[in-house]
């Protein structure tokens, strides 16, 4: 990778927990760095805390969440900013792209306007030119009949069309860092390919994508980070991770893929507040578990390939 890449986002020791009747530890000591041009995919089972991680960075979680650690975007510490300053970054520098299948778009507003909204808010464009720009963006993701569907409402869109419109919305104000949350959820095979092409067509944007669709991750990402039960367990360049997974969980996960013979590892991820999961969360299901695993292993660096497992001490 050439030297022009500079650090865009540095997340250090980020933890998120929710008080209330039962204490939930959603994210535990996650640290990662994102450089310009990176295509990072965060993989993990549902409930491993990956979406919450994204929202925590942009401080979009509900007030009842308790977030610790620090997130530095370029030279600003996001957690120190006032709501106003954070708004200046959201949408214009970092943008969040929700799932296409959910109702991520306001049902009562035209799609064209919603895509153009960041432009109006951050670039001070008037509504008419902004919406024209939005139509171009939709054409760029070739949704078809962009002129007319821009004036239509979200419920007339199919899941795939909605996902691509949301991506357009994310980049409409020229954001350099794109957070995508489960973009392939609820889409059939061909729509997933279309979405992957849409992401790959993005030049100049850095992507942080959360998904549980491994094939999609492989196709879209340059680096992958694996999360399991609120912990970050492995991070490595995509091809290296897929060819030579180091962490037992990652190895088992890849083995369970249809292409690799559907060999399933029985058992479930521990619930968030189980007391006896101190140390390595995968301990109970790991075939190489040893006494040492009772303490939480740190992230070891094996030639640019981080893994949280005592084997690689």
């Amino acid at each position, binding site marked *: 990778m050439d030297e022009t890449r500079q650090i865009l986002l540095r997340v250090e020791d980020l933890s998120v927990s929710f008080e209330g009747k039962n204490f939930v530890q959603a994210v535990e000591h996650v640290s990662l760095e994102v450089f310009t041009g990176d295509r990072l995919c965060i993989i993990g089972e549902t409930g491993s805390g990956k979406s919450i991680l994204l929202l925590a960075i942009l401080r979009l979680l509900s007030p009842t969440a308790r977030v610790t650690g620090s997130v530095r975007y370029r030279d600003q510490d996001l957690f120190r900013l006032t709501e106003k300053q954070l708004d200046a970054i959201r949408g214009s520098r970092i943008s969040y792209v929700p799932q296409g299948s959910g109702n991520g778009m306001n049902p*009562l507003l035209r799609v064209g306007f919603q895509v153009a909204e960041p432009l109006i808010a951050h670039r001070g464009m008037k509504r008419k030119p902004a919406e024209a720009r939005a139509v171009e963006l939709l054409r760029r993701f070739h949704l078809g009949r962009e002129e007319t569907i821009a004036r239509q409402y979200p419920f007339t869109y199919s899941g795939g069309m909605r996902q691509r419109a949301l991506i357009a919305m994310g980049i409409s104000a020229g954001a350099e860092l794109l957070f995508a949350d489960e973009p392939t959820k609820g889409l059939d095979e061909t729509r997933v390919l279309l979405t992957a092409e849409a992401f790959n067509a993005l030049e100049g944007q850095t992507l942080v994508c959360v998904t549980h669709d491994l094939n999609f991750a492989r196709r879209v990402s340059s680096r992958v980070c694996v999360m399991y039960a609120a912990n970050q367990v492995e991070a490595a360049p995509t091809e290296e991770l897929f060819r030579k997974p180091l962490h037992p969980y990652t190895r088992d996960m890849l083995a369970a893929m249809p292409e690799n013979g559907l060999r399933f590892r029985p058992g479930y991820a521990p619930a968030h507040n189980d007391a006896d999961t101190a140390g390595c969360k995968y301990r109970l299901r790991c075939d190489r578990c040893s006494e040492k695993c009772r303490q939480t292993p740190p992230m070891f660096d094996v030639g640019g390939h981080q893994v949280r497992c005592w084997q690689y001490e």
Partner: protein
Amino acid sequence: MLLHVTKKVLIAILTIWLIITISFVLVHTMPGDPIIFLIGEEEYYYLLDNDPAYLDQLIEKYGLNDDMGTQYARYMRSVATLDFGESYSNHKPVLENFLSAAKWTLRLSIPTLIVACFLGAVLGIHAGIHPGGRFDRITTPIFLVLNTIPSNCLSLLLLILFAYKLKWVPINGMVSPGVMGAARTASILHHMALPLFILIIFRTSGDFMLMKSTVSQIRSEEYVLTARSKGIGRQKVLFRHVLKNALVPYSTSLCMQLGSLLSGSMIVEVVFGWKGMGQMMYTAVSNRDFATAQFCFLLSAVCVVLSNLLGDIVNAAIDPRIRREAGADD
């Protein structure tokens, strides 16, 4: 879309006609000889003693002993020609009584509707935005209690406290006599203060509850998260996204309330001696004043049907899904 609207209008007219018939049958088969209520108990017994012929003349005049069919036909004709006959109590045309009564009821109900809609919305949004927050924990119990106090008790207690003991507000009636122009308006406002205050309390608590539950539901919707992530600022998120979606159920309930605009709140009007539609309907029904009673039923039926119609149209205007679904379903 046009076909849909015409169909709705047709159904509305049919509903109104049905209600007229039902109210006619109900009122006319009501037990109790209307003549007694027509001229008052004492005079009825006096006339029965001294001048029964005149009684028969009255019965003839109001056509009370014709069979139901002819009375119904005559009533239908009069409804068509908008001449609603003469009120039994003061022999004035029903329409004239209605105009004066409606004027007074509207003076109470329109400000109530507007203030309550605004107050209910603003407070509801604040409470809904942070459910379980400090503001919510204070206002919800208050409005819940206000919602449950029977209106007659509250009206009487406040009347005696403010009007009699503290003399802030006149005790009785709608306007002090013998004043004209600006002074008359001032005196109307002065008389209006307490009943308006009570009506606003009740209406606001209803609107507050509705808005709060709607907003607290919408607040957790995904598109609100997306809106916040666009960095367009707290104000725009609130008004353009949260509020707009909250308006759909809120506006339907407002339109429903429009229907009761003219019927007025019977109990508050009876307590304050407010000669509005509520009291007119109450006296008409209890005094078997057929002409006025039927007119009141007809009027409130028309109002409710129109307001439902308006509710549908406003909904379709705001929510494209309903518009398309409406278009598609016939």
